[in-house]
């Protein structure tokens, strides 16, 4: 009855051999292809550097002005724009301008990457049920796997730095875009699709003129989620060398600098609220044709 009280394990020897086998195989893979992969990600790196330079090197009043204009275009709300300007001024006044700009740049590129990859996957998923059956559990794994775990292979492959950080952020933040795109397209009413087919739309026309426009508010909700999730990755990403507001927080944790931590934490909250309100207001504006219901 020994097996009843002690779990029958596979044996230390075998387990070690298995772990070693996988580790060595992956290391060999990294040595073989690491450089190639790094080169493949080079354009992304250049883009990251470019957007970071753009935000940090431009005069701050110009940056604030352009962010204010973008939030205005998205939300058409004076309240949100004024809130944005005040938040940015406060951040700058408390000496966190550069770090904030680095973080904003990172979030911007991460969201863009998530969109470029996520939209097509979401569309494909909505079209093919088999694809949905494969992608959904994959997304579940991506969202529940502790991020530290996939930081390991990412760092092994790409080394410490911006690109590895970006990849980690994108892996963590891409699921909402994919899920909501899929959901939004699947939620388009059957009768509207039938009508569009009755008028002889091609697959492309149906997608661009009916399905995507009607799914857009839902997709925007996904984008909003993606932005929020990538912001929450900022601190973790700073552990593998991503610059920005995460770095001071990390330093604060290590040295118990309470104020430093709270300031930078609040700055993250500040830009999170800006992004959230602006993108939500934009999503709402996309739905305005649904709101005014005939009484």
């Amino acid at each position, binding site marked *: 009855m020994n097996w009843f009280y002690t779990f029958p394990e596979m044996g230390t020897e075998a387990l070690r051999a298995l772990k070693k086998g996988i580790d060595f195989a992956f290391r060999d893979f990294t040595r073989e292809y690491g450089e190639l992969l790094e080169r493949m990600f080079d354009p992304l790196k250049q883009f990251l550097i470019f957007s970071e330079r753009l935000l940090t090197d431009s005069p701050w009043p110009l940056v604030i002005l352009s962010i204010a204009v973008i939030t205005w275009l998205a939300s058409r709300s004076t309240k949100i724009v004024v809130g944005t300007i005040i938040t940015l001024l406060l951040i700058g006044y408390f000496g966190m301008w550069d770090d904030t700009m680095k973080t904003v740049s990172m979030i911007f590129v991460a969201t863009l990457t998530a969109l470029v990859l996520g939209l097509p996957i979401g569309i494909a998923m909505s079209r093919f049920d088999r694809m949905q059956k494969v992608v959904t559990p994959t997304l579940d794994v991506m969202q529940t796997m502790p991020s530290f775990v996939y930081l390991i292979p990412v760092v092994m492959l790409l080394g410490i730095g911006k690109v590895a950080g970006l990849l980690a952020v994108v892996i963590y933040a891409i699921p909402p875009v994919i899920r909501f795109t899929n959901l939004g397209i699947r939620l388009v*009413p059957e*009768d*509207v699709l*039938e*009508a*569009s*087919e*009755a*008028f*002889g*739309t*091609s697959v492309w*026309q149906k997608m661009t*003129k*009916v399905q995507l*426009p*009607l799914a857009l508010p839902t997709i925007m909700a996904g984008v909003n989620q993606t932005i929020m999730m990538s912001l929450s990755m900022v601190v973790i990403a700073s552990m593998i060398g991503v610059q920005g507001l995460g770095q001071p927080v990390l330093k604060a944790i290590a040295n118990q600098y309470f104020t430093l931590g709270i300031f930078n934490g609040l700055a993250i909250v500040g830009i999170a609220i800006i992004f959230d309100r602006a993108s939500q207001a934009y999503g709402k504006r996309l739905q305005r*044709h*649904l*709101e*005014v*219901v*005939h009484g």
Partner: protein
Amino acid sequence: MVDPVTNNDNAEVTSSVGIEVKGLYKIFGPTPEKYLEDVKGGMSKDELRDNHGHVLGLKDININMKAGGIQVVMGLSGSGKSTLIRHINRLIDPTAGELLVGGQDVVKMDDKQLRAFRREQTAMVFQKFALLPHYTVLENAEFGLQVKGESSKARRKKARSWVERVGLTGYENNYPNQLSGGMQQRVGLARALTNDAPVLLMDEAFSALDPLIRTDMQSVLLDLQQELGKTIVFITHDLDEALRLGDQVAILRDGEVVQQGTAQQIVLKPADSYISSFVRDVNRGRVIRCKTLMQAGPAVDGPQVDSSLVIEEAARILSAEGKEAANVVSAKGRLLGTITMTDIIGAMVPPQEDAISVT
């Protein structure tokens, strides 16, 4: 089954596109082909459903829809009428049968031909409107032309004129959600008409509207049809609507055509007790025409009525003039016979035996 008008591939005049439904079967389920022979051999709808898990949608439908006329397909829910109309532009694929629209078999078209066919030959109006919620009234109306790839200037002009024709001037830039049901269906109608297709498919188009607006929309449709002369297939569950609109009416029950003919034929000679129970409450005065009731004979002292006039109108004329009989004349004014008030009243009351024969 000879169609005098169709079978002309290069039809120039739009109204010359007739529709022929020949031996159409539709069985819903995973392997419909397997049961086709059984159904043709007489397997009942219930047996197919209970023992084989397939649903019989349509069974041996043969309807000849005249070009330029309004063909009404009437039936209660579950009779297969919406399934039938969706076969005409092949939103549903048949299990067997032929469907000739303007001489072309829709069933044999490949994807590309089908798209072209839908764009050029048909337009559809839906029960629940199915407007595009993110488009304005005008953009909805021009949707068909947009799909065809017409320039925005040309299609806007056409859409504007049709939106005007259906009485929505001033609402061009509203979104569908801002409109009432009746107005939304006007948009649906404008969208279909802007497409300028010879065949107009209307799937319970007015069923979701309240009675007053429904009558109103029927008039709009009849007025437009006067000048357009499209081939209209109109689905309804409402007999009054069927009789009012239909040049020809086909009655569907459990996926089978139980009777087809003119409104008058159906009211006066119901094929079975099912139909006679339907037509019992119909206002016969608005269906039966003078031509049917008139008797040959010399002219009488009374007003002249057109032979195609419904007897209710004839009765109105007679009572207004205080006469007992009228002369029935052809469209050219030639005397065809006479009609008396007694005959009219007799015809307007449903015959007793009809009512009894219903179980």
